[in-house]
């Protein structure tokens, strides 16, 4: 036995009677002294690994010691030494803050004067003191997260497992939580923090990177990005058509990966490539070296982005009229009782533009989004979609828009073909128009071979293609995307955005809501929504500049802008 807090060798776990391999052949050791990041997209196996470590699942292969115990046979003594905060924090939403603490204190047998003392410490640590009587369900995402942490810390554990503690929480609370957990590490507690946000990984002392149940990296985050030194660039000064340029660049053999980043294009080159070759023929464009990021490294390790062009590149409608306003929101306001969910939200989106409504959960972006889709009646203000006033002709306006929901909202037990048929019917397509539309979608998205398969069983990338096909089958003027790629692995996300970029090029106006800042970078312009208000609007680069530094992430810019708006600085 070693001194390590966790030691794992040859760990494997299968589900569904052994047919689905969730984790295979993991070996690592973890000690104290730093936050260990467990990093990977949804479905990579992060939660399964944490549950195995916590003794909540039993392994199929390998050996593991956690706090010197075997989670399989010594679950009870192990639970006395470790704390686990599951996704959604494991709180009882119908109990108050104090009642939640009470419960966990009882479960961990903490009584007497120590209990009161510990509560006081935790409430001070989490700044939840003034809210002890509030129901946990009525707390903001950030406060829930802190309460979840407090419940996990009722007794100081040796090991703290946090499963996606920062999902959907606003960037400011995220940063606060990070600091709190850092304090715990300094106090000698071992911490594993799982996350699908690759940017969060850069802050960890050590990362385990999972992809499809396998560990693709184990070490300090710097080690992950080191091989990319000198290979990450920003193509800046591109005047117009950066999405089309990106589409062309991605087909080149010397480009591993590329994404839109505000007004620029971020590119990762193959080792030994000549960066100058990429800006050739583009007037005014320059390649600027940038520090590589974790996501770049992740993509590099997975072999880079696919080389296919989007079928939408030769989109049906190139007769666009850029500059024409397609979506206009005029002081949209929605109140629920006394609570103002959205307050005087105004913005314009022009044809072919990709516009992002960005903000943490509960900020008011979904409310705004629902009003724009005509699903929710505004308390005051108005909106037009493709020239139709939502207040006067909501069904006409809705006929001009396509919608793709956050989660896979197709019928998983219908075949791909049946899904297409169904959505064609929903959009009122019939006869020849319906046949044409469906066959067009099958050709465009190369769904031909999958037609007979259940939509639920096709690979994630194809699911997304199908969902997109169902949303754009009736050639909408406006496409609404609700957190289309949050948590999705970067490769699938890139494929998806290739299609979105091409759609936008062919004149479709796109509006995205997301709390996922990486997604926001792909937008032409974003509106930052916070506590029901639009606190800033502009291109991602402009917002970064306004926050004082063009090289920061959009998330950092967001935090800065929120803080300025709170301290009375008025965002113009």
């Amino acid at each position: 036995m070693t001194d390590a807090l966790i030691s794992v060798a040859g760990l494997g776990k299968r589900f569904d009677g052994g047919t689905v391999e969730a984790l295979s052949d993991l070996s690592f050791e973890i000690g104290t002294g730093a936050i260990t990041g467990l990093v990977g997209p949804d479905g990579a196996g992060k939660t399964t690994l944490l549950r195995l470590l916590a003794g909540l699942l039993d392994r199929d292969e390998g050996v593991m010691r956690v706090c010197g115990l075997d989670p399989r046979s010594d679950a009870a003594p192990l639970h006395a030494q470790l704390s686990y905060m599951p996704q959604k924090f494991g709180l009882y939403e119908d109990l108050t803050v104090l009642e939640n603490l009470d419960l966990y204190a009882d479960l961990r047998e903490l009584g007497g004067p120590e209990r009161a003392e510990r509560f006081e410490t935790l409430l001070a640590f989490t700044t939840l003191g003034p809210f002890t009587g509030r129901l946990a369900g009525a707390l903001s995402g950030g406060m829930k997260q802190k309460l979840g942490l407090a419940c996990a810390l009722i007794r100081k554990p040796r090991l703290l497992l946090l499963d996606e503690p920062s999902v959907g929480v606003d960037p400011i609370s995220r940063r606060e939580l990070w600091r709190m957990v850092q304090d715990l590490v300094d106090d000698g507690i071992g911490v594993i923090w799982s996350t699908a946000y690759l940017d969060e990984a850069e802050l960890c002392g050590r990362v385990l990177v999972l992809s499809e149940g396998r560990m693709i990296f184990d070490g300090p985050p710097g080690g992950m990005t080191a091989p990319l030194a000198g290979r990450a660039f920003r193509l800046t000064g591109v005047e117009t058509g950066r999405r089309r340029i990106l589409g062309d660049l991605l087909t080149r053999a010397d480009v591993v990966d590329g994404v839109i980043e505000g007004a620029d294009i971020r590119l990762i080159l193959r080792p030994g490539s000549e960066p100058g070759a990429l800006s050739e023929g583009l007037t005014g464009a320059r390649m600027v070296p940038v520090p590589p990021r974790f996501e770049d490294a992740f993509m590099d390790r997975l072999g880079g982005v696919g080389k296919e062009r989007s079928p939408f590149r030769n989109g049906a409608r190139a007769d666009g009229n850029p500059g024409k306003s397609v979506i206009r929101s005029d002081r949209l306001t929605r109140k629920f009782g006394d609570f103002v969910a959205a307050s005087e939200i105004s913005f314009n989106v022009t044809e072919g533009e990709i516009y992002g409504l960005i903000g943490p959960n509960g900020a008011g972006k979904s409310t705004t989004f629902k009003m724009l889709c005509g699903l929710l009646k505004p308390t005051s203000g108005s909106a037009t979609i493709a020239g139709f006033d939502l207040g006067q002709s909501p069904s006409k306006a809705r006929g001009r828009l396509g919608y793709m929901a956050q989660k896979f909202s197709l019928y998983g037990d219908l075949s791909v073909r049946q899904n297409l048929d169904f959505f064609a019917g929903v959009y009122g397509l019939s006869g020849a128009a319906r046949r044409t539309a469906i066959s067009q979608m099958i050709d465009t998205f190369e769904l031909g071979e999958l037609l007979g398969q259940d939509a639920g069983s096709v690979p994630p990338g194809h699911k997304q293609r199908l969902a997109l096909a169902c949303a754009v089958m009736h050639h909408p003027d406006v496409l609404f995307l609700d957190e289309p790629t949050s948590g999705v692995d970067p490769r699938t996300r890139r494929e998806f955005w290739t299609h979105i970029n091409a759609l936008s090029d062919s004149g479709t106006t796109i509006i995205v809501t997301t709390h996922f800042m990486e997604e926001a970078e792909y937008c032409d312009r974003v509106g930052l929504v916070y506590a029901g208000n639009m606190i800033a609007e502009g291109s991602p680069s402009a917002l970064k500049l306004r926050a004082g530094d063009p090289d920061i992430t959009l998330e950092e810019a967001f935090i800065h802008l929120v803080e300025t708006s709170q301290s009375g600085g008025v965002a113009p």
Partner: protein
Amino acid sequence: MSRQAAPGRFNARRVRGLIRKEVRQVLRDPSNFVVAIILPALLLFLFGYGVTLDPRHYELGLVIEQPTAETGSLAAAFTNSPFFEVQIAQDRRQLEPALVAGDLHALVVVPAAASARAYGGQTAPIQVIVDGSDPNTANLVLGYVELLWANWLEQQSIGHGGMIAPPPISIEHRVWFNPELASRNYLVPGSIAIILTLIGSLLTALVIAREWERGTMEALLATPINVAELLIGKLAPYFLLGMASMALSTVLAVTVFGVPLRGSIWVLTLISAVYMLASLGQGLLISTLTRNQLVASQVSILSAFLPAFYFSDFVFEIDSMPVALQWVSYIVPARYFVSSLQTVFLAGDIWPVILPDTAALGLVSAVIFTVTLMRTRTRLD
């Protein structure tokens, strides 16, 4: 840090904490009140007032082919009966369409020669045509018609100085336990069984499935809790809730519906407690296996509520079921409970009924709890 008891050992503080949490949740969630208070009251009122299995006002067509003084008094006997609404005609063809259309439950035809033959000491043939599409009603109507006919014959024979053949056997009715034969008196105790089934199986299955769905079970299981603590922490509050609901139902049954309570409160409490355990055990088992509120509610309706309704002698008589179904009824806990409840309410503390019922219930509970304990793990898989 305070001393921590050996992990995995049963700990009263943990159980107390769990119970307190559960009670707080129950008190805070109005839907629990609906299930524990409103629903029982509603069911009792429904079965106490709304549903009655007592025969009333059957639609009867009476065809008297040749009116005479005797047929006149027969017609009067039918018309005066509280069981029938009578339409009279001289020709069956006038009333047959109504029978076909379902407007009449039965048609009684008194042929021209009937009274003459009867007075001649022969069998008097009257014809009864019954709508058999609802066999229960058909049997009841047939029985009432026969009874009425026999009574009438008897009266006539007294009036005519014994000229008519007396019926071969004379039947004296005496009804024990429920002299008015009011169906309410056995429906109300029966519906108490249904109420406890709902609280025990459905509510319990739902609250535990909810914990799985919301991810709080995962957080609970990661603490040093053990299976016994978890089960007791979950069972105790709902046991008490069920018993409170039982008390409420009993008070309503006795005061509002005038159902007699001839047995003792203690026996009533004892059998209810044992039944509650069986029912809770079933709820626990369902939620442990399904972990999903929708599936849990469907499974508990199918496996607990409906059997309690059909196989408990509550509404449907087990003795008149096919033998195979009668055997099925032996594994339905509600069967024993309804039998005991009806006994305690209507007859008293009849130990030869209550003891075997309680023993059977105890056995069922023991089996269910053993399975539940085996299936419940402090693990997710």
